[in-house]
């Protein structure tokens, strides 16, 4: 079973890597949807592996498909459709990294995730390939940092959440159902609110141009 988890983990990393160099927002949303289905498959397999918690994990897998795999991409695509005449052409205007650069940096991050895990947590957790969720988390951070398009930043955050689901399931055996369900509901609320904010934001940027940098300095 561990090998299957490793294959799914690897698949998620590859999907995030493709998101990294893809510039069209709609395709990135589709890739996120696919990665959510992979997470759901992971939860089903985890359920089969743990007979005591199988029903909860199956319900969670169902929730993941409905919310992360279908509803969230649907909400984002609809928001994109409302804002643009040709939503399939919406793209990251100035990606910070090209294809080569994103592959290189992603590989470095995978190595960093592996190095940190092997040298700090492996001796305590004793879970083989436990570095995969950490590498995924770092890649999601890269997705947020290297993109300015709000939808892609949002997807980066959602991939981060997927990494946490994987971490809790793979390494620690999952969180209590009520907490996982609460997290998914929060996520849905966050995506709906973010879509509204992004819609207004893009609308004002299209109308007035991007002029906020001088006023928001952190």
């Amino acid at each position: 079973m561990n090998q299957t988890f490793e294959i799914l983990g690897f698949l998620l990393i590859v999907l995030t890597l493709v998101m990294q160099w893809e510039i069209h927002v709609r395709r990135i949303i589709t890739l996120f949807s696919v990665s959510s289905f992979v997470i759901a498959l992971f939860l089903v397999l985890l359920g089969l592996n743990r007979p005591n918690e199988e029903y909860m994990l199956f319900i969670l897998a169902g929730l993941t498909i409905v919310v992360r795999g279908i509803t969230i991409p649907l909400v984002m695509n609809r928001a994109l459709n409302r804002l643009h005449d040709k939503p399939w052409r919406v793209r990251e205007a100035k990606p910070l990294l090209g294809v080569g650069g994103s592959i290189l940096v992603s590989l470095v991050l995978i190595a960093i995730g592996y190095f940190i895990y092997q040298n700090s947590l492996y001796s305590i957790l004793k879970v083989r390939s436990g570095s995969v969720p950490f590498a995924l988390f770092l890649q999601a951070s890269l997705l947020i940092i290297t993109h300015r398009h709000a939808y892609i930043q949002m997807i980066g955050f959602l991939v981060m959440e997927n990494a946490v689901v994987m971490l809790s399931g793979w390494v620690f055996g999952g969180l209590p159902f009520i907490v996982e369900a609460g997290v998914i509901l929060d996520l849905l609320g966050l995506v709906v609110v973010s879509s509204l904010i992004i819609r207004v934001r893009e609308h004002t940027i299209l109308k007035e141009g991007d002029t906020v940098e001088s006023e928001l300095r952190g």
Partner: protein
Amino acid sequence: MHQDIIYLLPIFFSLFGAVLCVLPVKYVDRVVSVIASVLSLAVAIYLLFQPVYIDHYLYFDGLSKLLILTIALVYLSTVLYSLTYLKHIENLLFQHRLYYILLNIFVATMFFSVSMDNLGLIWVGIEATTVSSALLIATENNQVTIESAWRYVIIVSTGLVISLIAVTFIYGSAGTLSLHALLQHHPDNRVFLIGIMLGIVGFGTKAGIFPMHTWLPDVHGKAPAPVSAIFSAVLLPVALYAIARLIQIFPSETIRLFAFVLGILTVAVAALMMTVQTNYKRMFAYSSMENMGMILIGISLGGYGLLGAVIIIISHGLAKSSVFFLTGDVLSISHTTDMRKVNGLIQRLPRAASALFVAAMAVTGAPPFAIFVGELFIFAALIAQYGWLLALVVILFLAIAFISVNFKTGKMIFTGRENLKRERSRTETWVAIVNLALSFLVILLIPYFETLLKNLL
């Protein structure tokens, strides 16, 4: 009636208020919000005299009760202030009705966060505060407020993912997320330790703790006055509440030192940043950050340091909401947040200006306000544990903050041309004045707080 229902009433009233705001009747949103906030405050006061209550879902001790009271006080004042203030906002992103719906839900999520026994549900509650409050920041529809709302969502949510990882680590090593179970027994291993530390960093993002504080000045600088007030007064302390619980669960030397260092760095960065601010709302945002740093120091020290932290939470909540309400008055006559363009406030808005002067003194820890007493408690614990030198360093940063804020506020109030036209005084200023007076009266209740927090000191 089940006893636990009483403890859920503040959540119920605010949520029910949000639902009733939907009714298509004129002014129903305002009337319902006032009633919901008054009822929540009444229950919060009643709960102070109820025994500690702990079951599988709820955890109500002195700390929760005092947080509920602070949230309820600021909730009522924010609703009252919003009644008239919203009229001054020209380009509203949405109707008043949605503003009150979001405000009520936002308060309900804060009540929820400080009432739960489960660390995972506390996380869910704090993340839900982000969902419900993000649109409130953008109440005034312009590119900058929208951008700050977006930054708030992405930075705070990313930070909270770190605390979700922390929750995962804690559950993975302890097998439970229940506060009362973890307080009775918890593992003493590295996974648990890392979990607690990640939790401090993650929840610290929401509390404006260095180094994940960058959203705070942007949001406070651009949100409408009542939203800045409720953020600064109670949202930041609600996140610190989670940190206080984590430290209470695992009060090891490493954890305390980690939180202490973050607290000092927060105070230092905030104090230094205050000196270069030209936007008065951003300056007061950094003042909130400085106070959160002091609270974190108090929590990390424990004992009377913790009592000091709680005194600051309550007193700062009232005084800082007062400050932000008053900045709203200033903004509505000056139409700018640039303090170099604001002067002669004492002539133009004498009542609000006088209150702002006193409120600025209060939030920077001037005696005889309760923040000063809270800081004294923290310094007593700090000197006892780390000696005079470190205490002097913190005092130096507090002095920098005190001088920056009061000098700049004084300049806006007292300098300027003579014979400036006096503006019509605003009724909502009284809300700020009442909060300021309450913040002063907190000092009288300190012995009672000590009794309430007996099990934590």
